[in-house]
């Protein structure tokens, strides 16, 4: 291939990289976003670890609550992190920046791919920090670090899938404040009506039906299985199926919204 042809073939990658770089630069420079990404998850770990431990351990005989909790918090943080995607895209839409990008001869999917990839990179950092803090407050894996690492990779994949959901929300709503307001009713039931913090068995029957099968629960259970043991493969496959389904639905939806965003 000639060098021009190589450049041509690499152009979409370059575009995605450029947008990813730009989004990460913004996260680094806006203290609010950094706090949102780091302090908030830490507060959750410390609060849940010490506030809920007494009550929760009643329904969890034999397992330290912190070992039960941490996989759930990992998933929760990945889901909350997707708010960055919403706010970022809604801001770009509002400022007219998306419109400028759409008028450039760049890869059509690069803006959304760069957005979700930047949020994935940020999640890597946040999860690493959370893991360290988790260990500091007594969290221990029962099955070895490689499995935990596998569990964390699953969390990242799930966070990436959720970023596409909230990318669509941001593009539909179109201004950051409303986008945040619109995200919360989607996010809260997913995160709190789940097995992330408390066993589903403690919930009323009608809620269990939802809580046991929804994606956050399944993923939390999968990660938990990598830490505590249990039917690991079953949960991991279920979680991967959710991830694939979410991306399959929301990535095209996002691309379609992006194309006609105004």
């Amino acid at each position, binding site marked *: 291939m000639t060098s021009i042809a190589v450049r041509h073939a690499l*152009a979409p990658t*370059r*575009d995605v990289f*450029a*947008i990813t770089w*730009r989004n990460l*630069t*913004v996260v680094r*420079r*806006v203290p609010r976003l950094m706090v949102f990404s780091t302090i908030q998850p830490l507060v959750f770990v410390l609060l849940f670890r010490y506030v809920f431990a007494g009550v929760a351990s009643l329904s969890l005989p034999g397992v330290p609550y912190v070992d039960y909790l941490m996989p759930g918090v990992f998933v929760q943080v990945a889901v909350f992190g997707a708010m960055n995607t919403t706010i970022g895209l809604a801001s770009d839409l509002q*400022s*007219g*920046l998306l*419109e*400028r*990008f*759409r*008028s*450039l*001869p*760049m890869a059509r999917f*690069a803006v959304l791919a760069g957005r979700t990839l930047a949020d994935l990179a940020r999640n890597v950092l946040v999860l690493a920090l959370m893991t360290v803090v988790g260990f500091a407050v007594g969290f221990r894996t029962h099955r070895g670090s490689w499995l935990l690492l596998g569990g964390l990779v699953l969390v990242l994949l799930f966070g990436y899938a959720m970023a596409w959901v909230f990318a669509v929300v941001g593009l539909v709503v179109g201004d950051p404040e409303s986008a945040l307001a619109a995200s919360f009713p989607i996010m809260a039931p997913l995160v709190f009506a789940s097995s992330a913090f408390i066993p589903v068995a403690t919930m009323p029957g009608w809620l269990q039906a939802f809580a046991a099968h929804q994606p956050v629960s399944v993923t939390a259970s999968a990660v938990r299985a990598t830490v505590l043991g249990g039917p690991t493969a079953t949960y991991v496959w279920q979680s991967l199926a959710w991830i694939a389904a979410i991306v399959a639905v929301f990535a095209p939806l996002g691309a379609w919204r992006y194309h006609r965003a*105004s």
Partner: protein
Amino acid sequence: MGTHAIVVDGLTKRFGDLAALDDVSFEVAPATVFGVLGPNGAGKTTAIRVLTTLLRPDGGRASILGHDVVREADEVRRLIGLAGQSAAVDINLTGRENLRLIGRLSQMRRAAFRRRADELLERFGLADAATRRVREYSGGMRRRLDVAAALVASPPVVFLDEPTTGLDLQSRNGLWELIRELVGTGTTVVLTTQYLEEADRLADRIAIIDQGRLIANDAPAVLKAELGNTVIEIGLVDEPAATKAERLLLDAGKANVERDGDTLRLVARDGSPVLIDALHCLDDVDIRPTALQVRQPSLDDAFLQLTGRHPVERRS
């Protein structure tokens, strides 16, 4: 085909009941400035958005340098630069980073977009602010950076949507100069504005758009000959006095007299003799004007002339 930079043929775009563009056709010669003039919501921005591939038209066709804006959108994007109405720059990046990002995304080589970014920062008086975040820029600086961003890839066709709105006098004059320079080097510029004076100063051709329809498309000189060069407004004590004065001036053979309440409006190609004449005429019967204004015709005046009514602002 080859003789026009832009060809627009029967372009139509509806938003619900609103005809944002209603069968609009025009052509733009290469290396000229095409001024699109109209009030808020007339359809100027819709036209720009269709031409810059951001919006699909419902009917009609448009092409940039021979490339259809719908079927060959990718080719069109390589040929255009756009500065929209809002300053579409990232406030958390520096001025230089913003321009480099646009260069990179315009598929320029690193050395080329780096050089070009610094060149433009210099040209737009932003060199000293190059490493500062845009968050700290004034409104005028952001606007200038936004226009600079449209020029990073040195596109042959540039769209500027109300580029001088919110600019101070000095920045505005600088931008006007730059636009003339661009055209001098072969760039075609489409410029929207709400100010007749701006279109008159810059444009080789002025299109006036009203509620989605093109109501005029001419060289400024032709348009001005039609509209008159000077508008004289004579305010009188009350409506009866104004009615009386109107009749008097009409009888004296002043064809271009209009009354709006207690104010008379005269449009003239040559202002001062008409003004002196009219004042003499009124003085003879002891009618004393309470207010007097002599000015260049505004967009409003042009509308009155062309449509017989004031421009209607619509939400765009």
